């Protein structure tokens, strides 16, 4: 249920769902809130959500959910304008929060990509990088995941509707995995699971399906900071993969350069292994 009795908004808050470069999976996760969607539709005013409604209203918006990363020149004025129009801006998903999988281009020559892919590359306007929304405007809350966890989104929205500051947990997948009693896939299968350094949110889906986490919720907090002299968790885990699971440097690069490969704590690791 969507409680609104303590809502700080005088009327139904005006909500926008806006897309940049993405697969639409995070927006779909909103529509996948099947049980709560109608209640949600009654609690908020969906002012702009082109994927779901032809009624597209201009801003200002109380809340905007932003999916997708910034990848082409036209995106820049759009995101600046949206920020000006929006009170609470929330990124949804890896694309918007870290640049997403398409940020793999950041390590490549984009002109070569275009030429490889399009017969007439001059028609294509594209930036050489895919960047997170927060590199361009200030962001109020970030929901990680590829895709986001729809319950997390509902939670944030319900908090806002109640006038509570949303608190998004930041511990690692490993803790959830242990709590649920799954068999550790590093220990039992020798898989290079990123659960120890990946942010919670999914409910430890991969280990529950008998496989390694590939970091789709981005880095957990504190995995890249440690007291002086102690290597950060990320680096220690990488060492373990290398020494005990015999991953060779190119495999290490691929492991840390994935869906959230552009986030600094991951990119530092992949870049370090690339130069080995």
């Amino acid at each position, binding site marked *: 249920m969507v409680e609104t009795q303590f809502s700080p908004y005088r009327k139904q808050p005006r909500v926008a769902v806006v*897309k940049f470069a993405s697969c639409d*999976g995070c927006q779909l996760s909103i529509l996948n809130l099947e049980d709560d969607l*109608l209640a949600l539709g009654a609690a908020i005013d*969906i002012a702009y959500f082109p*994927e*779901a*409604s032809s*009624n597209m209203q201009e801003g200002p918006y109380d809340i905007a959910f932003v999916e997708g990363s910034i990848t082409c020149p036209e995106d820049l004025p759009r995101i600046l304008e949206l920020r000006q129009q929006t009170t609470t801006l929330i990124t949804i998903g890896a694309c918007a929060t870290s640049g997403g999988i398409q940020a793999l281009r950041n390590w*490549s020559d984009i002109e070569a990509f275009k030429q490889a*892919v399009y017969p007439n590359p001059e028609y294509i306007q594209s930036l050489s990088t895919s960047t997170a929304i927060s590199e361009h405007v200030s962001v109020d809350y970030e929901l990680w995941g590829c895709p986001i966890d729809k319950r997390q989104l509902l939670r944030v929205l319900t908090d806002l509707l109640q006038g509570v500051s949303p608190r998004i947990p930041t511990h690692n997948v490993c803790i959830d995995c242990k709590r649920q009693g799954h068999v550790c896939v590093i220990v039992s299968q020798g898989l290079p699971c990123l659960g120890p350094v990946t942010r919670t949110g999914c409910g430890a889906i991969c280990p529950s399906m008998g496989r390694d986490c590939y970091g789709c919720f981005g880095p957990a907090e504190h995995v890249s900071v440690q007291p002086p002299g102690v290597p950060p968790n990320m680096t220690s885990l990488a060492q373990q993969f290398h020494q005990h699971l015999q991953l060779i440097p190119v495999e290490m690069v691929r492991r840390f350069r994935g869906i959230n490969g552009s986030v600094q704590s991951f990119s530092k690791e992949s870049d370090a292994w690339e130069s080995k």
Partner: protein
Amino acid sequence: MPGNPNNTRTIKIDMMARVEGEGALNVTVKDGQVQDVQLRIFEPPRFFEAFLQGRHVNEVPDIVARICGICPVAYQMSAVHALEAIFGVEIPPAIRDLRRLLYCGEWIESHVLHIYMLQAPDFFGFASGLDMARVHPDLVKQGLRLKKAGNQLISLLGGRSVHPVSVKIGGFSQVPTKNQLHALTDELRWARDAAVKTLQWVSGFAFEDPEQDCTFLSLRGPSEYPMNTGSLITNKGHHLNASEFEDHFHEEQVPYSTALHCSFQGKSYLTGPLARLALNHDQLSPLTKEIFAETEFPLPFKRASMGIVARSVEVLYALDEALRIIEGYEQPASPSVPVIIKAGTGVAATEAPRGVLYHRFSVNEDGTIQLAKIVPPTSQNQRRIEDDLRNMLPGLLHLSDEETASKCERHIRSYDPCISCATHFLKFTREEVS
């Protein structure tokens, strides 16, 4: 403007609503004649084919899923089949069935989303499924629960419904127990009844767009309604293997779009539910055939708006098929078979909810991808949609620009284009790289 035929008139839709991804339409009319129809796709390219190069084959299912949040299973399926073709992997029947079951889940969630939330509102003049729910709450609730049934199937097999995690070359990382699957049976039975009602409901809609005659393309297998396997057939008598796809289907780039346009022997063609149903209706389940026969619609459907009927038929079939698979399921001893990675090239085509999805991969000795080519259904259909609009527009020009634009938008939407998919692929051949 109407009544002033010596003008050049431009009809524009700047941002199409209720489609996946971002696209626009430009129509130019001169002296009362339609000059140009451009379905403009401005969804930015994400260059999947390029950055797949150098990734390990085992990462491919997780990567290609991200091409489309609505049909990730389709991408995973075409990819693993193409790679398994290289490695000579034989998939045992139980795993084959589970893959089909997973695909059923995706057809259900994708089709039901389109039926209830995207296309049906057009028949009643609502701006969205949520607006429709204000007047017809029970109907929309039925649709959402039906969609959820599809998502539950994917979540059980894949861990979550968007970008499921269990699919791998050789099978799955884990398979469900018999009990886990049987626990879904009651809900799927409810959903099958709801699918019957859905088909009956949409069959009463008014389909008013002009009839069109076009080439239909779909897979066809020896016995089952096509999902994961089959050869490529058309209503014009063609019969091809997936390995011949690129000899017959050509992609070209147009300046106004980030998606490539595909043609078959120089002409537009259509893939997806209308084509599948026209070419494979004899393989539907007895229940689906019976309920469909009651609608008394002749096949093939010649109106794009009737896609909603075709999708409803397929939802009913997918539920019936899912129940059949679950009933006969025996948990395999191992969730996957061993795979020996080697160099080579493999192709596969499977039936995504929106039609034929073609993949070709070349793999290096070390198991990394040398080359990837992906042709999604929407880039195949784009030219067909433009041709269809060109046929239909003369009958609309007496209307105002705004009304014409809205009829066009509705017509495009009835094709269920997935624009996010369409843009991430592109021509990518080895000759061009060098």
